[in-house]
């Protein structure tokens, strides 16, 4: 009876705890054996005799009495380092191995790699091998050395492709977590920059790093991030977008509640404001949180250009955001229901264009919007070489020919084009995608209820935005609830010398950014006039 209960308990346990225990604590949860032969077999079996697994036998000591096994994965390690720091060290040891254990001898005197860890657990050995370490095993000893000789090939630091700036740093994150953290360290030269690393994904074991500045970021938000990341018990995390879906506040909302960026300068800037970043190994996209809506309309260049330019650009982006969301629907509403709103000559012009068009404005709008979305998607997926072909097809067929064939009016082409161009000004791509989707329900509302429908749609949207939170911080933060002191960095970008405080509602532990009165002034005492001046 009790046996059955135990089995049931175990089943429940597996069900509840997920795959973690089942996968890992099964076959491999064993100590190392002291026979080199057995260990070799176990490791090689664990990797399924994969072709990239290198097992090499060496002998140590003057009498070559200690047999040694080197295990690493080809391609994950730095081959140079393997030969100079490990193999050379072992082979050139003409000295007698002291009376102590050869493991101590190897660890303390022979292996020249930066980090050497001594383990006795099979799991740790296997983990070390798959993360690019070189494992050294010795006959008759049930311990192993895990040496850090990682050096896989990777893409170098390049200019970020999704967020381009005219002025500002040109480097972007890469796929390697270590390089990314180093790039942040280079920007913030203080030990206060903390990286908390976690492994997420029971099989993929993706390294995820929570970055924040101790003493600036709110500890409650950091704690919340930790909690949300630790509850992920999936098998794999491939990209930060996947991580985002496990930790965001409003999983069903069309709006993203985390910022993704591949610019280290942006991440550094947001960290300095008291936010938290999550870096994921294997992707150049970092996540920033808590995110507020205004951050999506902010490019890092706003902070580098002079503040008048920055503010004007902010304003422009706000307008283009509304345009890209509502322009087609307003056009449909006005041409269908409220023609009287336009100046007479314009109404006549539009009516003349629409004369031969067989569809109502809404069909026309949906048609062109969908056509444009297809074009855009094709442009992204296309191999570089055929790029020009698609633009010719797009321009000639969807533009000129469609108008000449009276399928659509040229006014509609203009509307769709303006909307499309406006939507490209959104600096954070993920918001742009959401807006793309939201346009369609608005067009349908406009075609049924006119401007009233558009306003109803916007009202619902606004209520939804007001109800969103990102890690506890209201999404529309300085606008709703209204925080006047944070207006300095929303629609306008205040000059740097006027940004004395960090944003208020993200509960930063260090509210002041700088001293007041940093505004540059000409020297007070007038310079003595020289002769001739």
């Amino acid at each position: 009876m009790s046996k059955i209960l135990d089995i049931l308990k175990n089943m429940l346990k597996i069900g509840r705890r997920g795959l973690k225990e089942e996968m890992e604590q099964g076959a491999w949860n064993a100590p190392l054996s002291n026979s080199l032969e057995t260990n070799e077999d176990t490791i090689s079996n664990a990797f399924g005799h994969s072709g990239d697994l290198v097992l090499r036998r060496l002998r140590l000591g003057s009498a070559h009495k200690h047999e040694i096994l080197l295990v690493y994965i080809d391609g994950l390690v730095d081959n140079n380092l393997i030969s100079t720091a490990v193999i050379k060290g072992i082979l050139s040891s003409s000295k007698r191995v002291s009376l102590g254990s050869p493991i101590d001898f190897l660890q303390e005197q022979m292996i020249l790699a930066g980090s050497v860890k001594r383990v006795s657990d099979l799991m740790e050995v296997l983990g070390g091998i798959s993360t690019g370490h070189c494992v050294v095993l010795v006959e008759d000893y049930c311990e192993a050395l895990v040496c850090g000789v990682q050096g896989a090939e990777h893409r170098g630091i390049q200019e970020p492709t999704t967020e381009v700036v005219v002025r500002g740093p040109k480097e972007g994150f890469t796929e390697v977590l270590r390089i990314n953290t180093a790039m942040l360290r280079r920007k913030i030269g203080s030990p206060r920059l903390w990286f908390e690393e976690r492994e997420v994904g029971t099989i993929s074991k993706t390294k995820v790093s929570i970055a924040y500045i101790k003493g600036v970021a709110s500890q409650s938000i950091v704690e919340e991030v930790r909690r949300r990341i630790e509850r992920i018990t999936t098998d794999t995390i491939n990209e930060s977008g996947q991580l985002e879906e496990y930790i965001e506040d409003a999983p069903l909302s069309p709006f993203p509640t985390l910022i993704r960026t591949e610019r280290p300068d942006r991440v550094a800037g947001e960290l300095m404001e008291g936010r938290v970043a999550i870096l994921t190994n294997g992707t150049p996209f970092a996540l920033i949180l808590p995110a507020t809506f205004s951050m999506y309309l902010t490019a890092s260049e706003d902070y580098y250009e002079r503040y008048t330019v920055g503010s004007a650009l902010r304003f422009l982006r706000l307008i283009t955001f509304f345009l890209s969301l509502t322009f087609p629907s307003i056009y449909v509403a006005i041409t269908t229901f409220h023609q009287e709103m336009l100046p007479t000559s314009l109404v006549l012009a539009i009516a003349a264009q629409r004369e031969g068009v067989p569809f109502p404005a809404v069909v026309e709008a949906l048609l062109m919007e969908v056509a444009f979305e297809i074009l855009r998607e094709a442009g992204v997926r296309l191999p570089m070489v055929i790029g020009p072909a698609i633009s010719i097809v797009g321009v000639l067929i969807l533009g000129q020919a469609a108008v000449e064939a009276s399928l659509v009016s040229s006014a509609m082409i203009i509307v769709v084009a303006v909307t499309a161009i406006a939507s490209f000004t959104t600096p954070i791509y993920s918001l742009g995608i959401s807006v793309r989707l939201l346009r369609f329900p608005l067009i349908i509302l406009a075609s049924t209820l006119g401007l009233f429908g558009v306003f109803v749609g916007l009202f619902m949207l606004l209520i939804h935005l007001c109800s969103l939170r990102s890690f506890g911080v209201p999404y529309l933060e300085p606008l709703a609830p209204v925080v006047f002191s944070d207006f300095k960095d929303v629609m306008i970008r205040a000059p740097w010398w006027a940004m004395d405080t960090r944003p208020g509602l993200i509960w930063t532990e260090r509210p002041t950014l700088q001293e007041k009165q940093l505004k540059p002034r000409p020297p007070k005492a007038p310079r003595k006039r020289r002769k001739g001046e």
Partner: protein
Amino acid sequence: MQLEKGRISGRQMMALIILGRIVSIMITFPLITGLSPVQDAWLAGLVSLAVAIPFLLWIIKLAEWFPDKTIIEYAIEALGPFFGRIIGAAVLSYLIWDIVVATRSIGDSLTVAIMPDTPILVFIIVLLAIAANAARCGLEVFSRMGENSLFVVLAFVLLIWVLPYEKTDFLRLKPVLSQGPLWLIRPSISSFSFYTELIVLGLIVPYLNKRDEALKYSLLGLLISGVILVVFAILVVAVFGPTANGLTMPPYSLTRMITIARFFERVEAISMGVWLLSSGINLATLLWATAIGLAQIFNLKGYRFLVYPIAALAVPLSVVAFESIVELERFLEYDMWGYLSIIMVLVILLPLTAAWLFRRLRSDA
């Protein structure tokens, strides 16, 4: 047991007050329509504002005498479970009636002004649906939205104050008090009904995050909305002259007067957005308050599930309550609404105050 976990700031409450007032100014404006002589409307507005201030103080004081409790809860506490619930029911019936009037007036205005061929039922259903949706999101969410909508709405109000400047002539406000000062009483009563809706504050004040801000911000909200009322009363007459009382929607007509350089015309389409924004939030507030009140009367554990049924109830009520916008406006003028509101408010507030005084005397003795 706390039904609503959200807390709002004093400024957000102020926004709710102002938006609620702006709805009835911008749409039906009962003070102006049908008033004769209309030149003195702004004086009546001032008088009613002066009366509204002690009324507001009364509501806030009641809330302070029974801290952390809504008007329904303290009615039950002060008057016992039976009479307390009757008073609570009076509050709720007033609120539901208010929802009906507000819905109907915006629905009528939309039909008359913007889309005459659309049946009013469409507007009523859509409006109550989005307002109920907002109310379900909780007090915090729609008052946050109210706070930032207030900027848009006030900016628009300023726009329609300033832009018809070509057509204003303040001499049209003469003669002042042609019927003698006693004449002001009737329009002041009808205009006072404009403030009695503030009884809803009895349900909002306990959810402020800083209780001591209640008086300051509600008074500020009252004054701002009073000023808006008076300025509109002046401007409408200054633009349209003595015939202003024949307009169905005076501020809307004022908006239609705006024309700049023959290009910037027909801004009244924007006024539809402002109507929708302010009345959506106003309706959300009222629906939320009714749901909270109902939940407290019946000791329910939640209120959100009540919002849609209440809104659904308001749909047929606001369709059948009035024949047309004319009947609605007559009702809102001095036929009934003013007296009804005042009686209702007295029925609600007097027993509560008496109970408090009685208690106080007993505890002193």
